[in-house]
């Protein structure tokens, strides 16, 4: 229980309160709104809230276990996200062994490097070594059909699903003078990023009129975007006490997280539309797949990490 510092407990208590409140609202909507056209939305909302309880419990548990817990959790999420991603690719028979390397060598290695705190190698394993390995291994396999497309889609999947996502537990490597365990910082990032998604959804459902990019994502509206970004930034500012930031810096950092998260959601939607699917998977009830839930994290985590590392480490 040495990992439980009081600030972490307060943050967990806040999440618990928020979950309880959402469940009550979900139940109330189910009980009082009788409009048949709203039923699908309400049952999806309740499925999402149910899934949030489970996801929060898993995340809290791994955070309490310590760095190993978080590394296993995010390593598994990278693995499953990459699986969802490659399922959508038009891979060819000759890609098989290169993909085997991506899943069973590069993915575990990336998280192992965080575990042994080897920052220098963590930062270049995928952008340098995997980047060069993938096309070389494909060339050895001997199939030149759509060669560049195949090589770059595999490289891109490794970058997004493994490299970018691994920046979340990589926060645990940071030694910030005068700040306790960086587990709180990881929780802060996840809270602001995920609440930004939730608030964009909530504002979008309540007020959403003007679509931002109807072809890419029919559910993203200007009202949802502005409301979500502002409320998540407000929450991130109010949580400055669990970070090494001053309130003003916390506001700026939260804004960066929410904007990056929005860019991530939009980008990952564009891929789904290109491949003609609604969701990446069906693992998380009401949400879709891992990649549907973590799309914003993939973009927010690396930027957040480097902001903190540049300004607060050393």
């Amino acid at each position, binding site marked *: 229980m040495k990992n439980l510092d009081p600030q972490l407990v307060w943050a967990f208590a806040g999440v618990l309160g928020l979950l309880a409140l959402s469940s009550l609202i979900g139940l109330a909507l189910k009980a009082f709104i009788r409009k048949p056209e709203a039923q699908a939305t309400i049952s999806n909302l309740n499925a999402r809230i149910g899934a949030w309880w489970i996801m929060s419990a898993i995340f809290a548990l791994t955070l309490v276990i310590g760095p190993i817990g978080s590394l296993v959790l995010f390593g598994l999420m990278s693995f499953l996200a990459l699986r*969802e991603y490659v399922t959508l690719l038009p891979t060819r028979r000759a890609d098989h062994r290169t993909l085997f390397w991506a*899943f069973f060598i590069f993915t575990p290695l990336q998280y192992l490097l965080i575990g042994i705190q080897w920052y220098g190698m963590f930062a270049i394993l995928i952008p340098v070594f995997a980047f060069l390995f993938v096309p070389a291994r494909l060339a050895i396999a001997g199939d030149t059909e759509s060669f560049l497309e195949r090589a770059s889609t595999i490289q891109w999947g490794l970058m997004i699903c493994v490299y970018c996502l691994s920046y979340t537990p990589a926060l645990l490597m940071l030694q910030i003078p005068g700040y306790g365990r960086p587990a709180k910082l990881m929780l802060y990032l996840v809270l602001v990023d995920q609440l930004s998604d939730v608030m964009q959804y909530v504002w979008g459902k309540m007020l959403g009129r003007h679509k931002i990019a109807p072809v890419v994502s029919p559910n993203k509206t200007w009202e949802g975007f502005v409301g979500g970004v502002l409320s998540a930034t407000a929450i991130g500012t109010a949580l400055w006490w669990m970070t090494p930031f001053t309130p003003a810096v916390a506001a700026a950092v939260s804004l960066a997280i929410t904007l990056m998260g929005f860019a991530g959601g939009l980008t990952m939607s564009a891929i789904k539309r290109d491949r003609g699917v609604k969701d990446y998977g069906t693992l998380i009830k009401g949400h879709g797949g891992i990649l549907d839930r973590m799309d914003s994290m993939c973009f927010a985590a690396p930027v957040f990490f480097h902001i903190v590392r540049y300004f607060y480490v050393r």
Partner: protein
Amino acid sequence: MKAHPLAGIIAGAARLISGVNVRWVDSEPDPRQTVYFANHTSHLDFVVLWSSLPAEIRARTRPVAAQDYWQKGLRRAIAVNVFRAVLVARRHTVQEGEVASADPRQAMGHMLDAMGSDNSLILFPEGTRGTGEEVAAFKSGLYYLSQQRPGLRLVPGYLNNLNRILPKGEFLPVPFISRLTFGPALTLAPDEPKAAFLTRAREALCRLRSI
């Protein structure tokens, strides 16, 4: 028939590895005696199809598998004891690498015996594994079984992506999310000619590919 103690664990592991997403289109699991037939692209096929059936149906469903592949050692022990596979001899003819039952009548007898009065079967009517792009013409097994058991339910199940997880000739799997789509049952109509029936069954299966 009681399920093997390992059956549940193996079924769970198979579903996890294959990430299979099971859908019943215009149909639902039915405990009545059935022949499940599917496209064949990977050694994982029957394991995944078998694992995707509800436990009580699975316990009475026996896959039909090639004796030459499953006859030795641990493979055989699992095939016979856990899946209660019906092992059927096949003969490799030299031309085109085509595969046919060594003695179709004998194989048919094995299958009918294995079905008894209430067991179901899993059958791959193409006879051999394909590339995953095309479903080959069906062998006659489905027709002869239906002739012997009038009114026999035949349920098509289309398997997507298993050839990508473990393609022909590879021994290490790569994770992909696979999909199994079951469709409504069909039965042999009285006086339906063999060729027409086999075409109808194949089309019922192919229709599920992109639903």
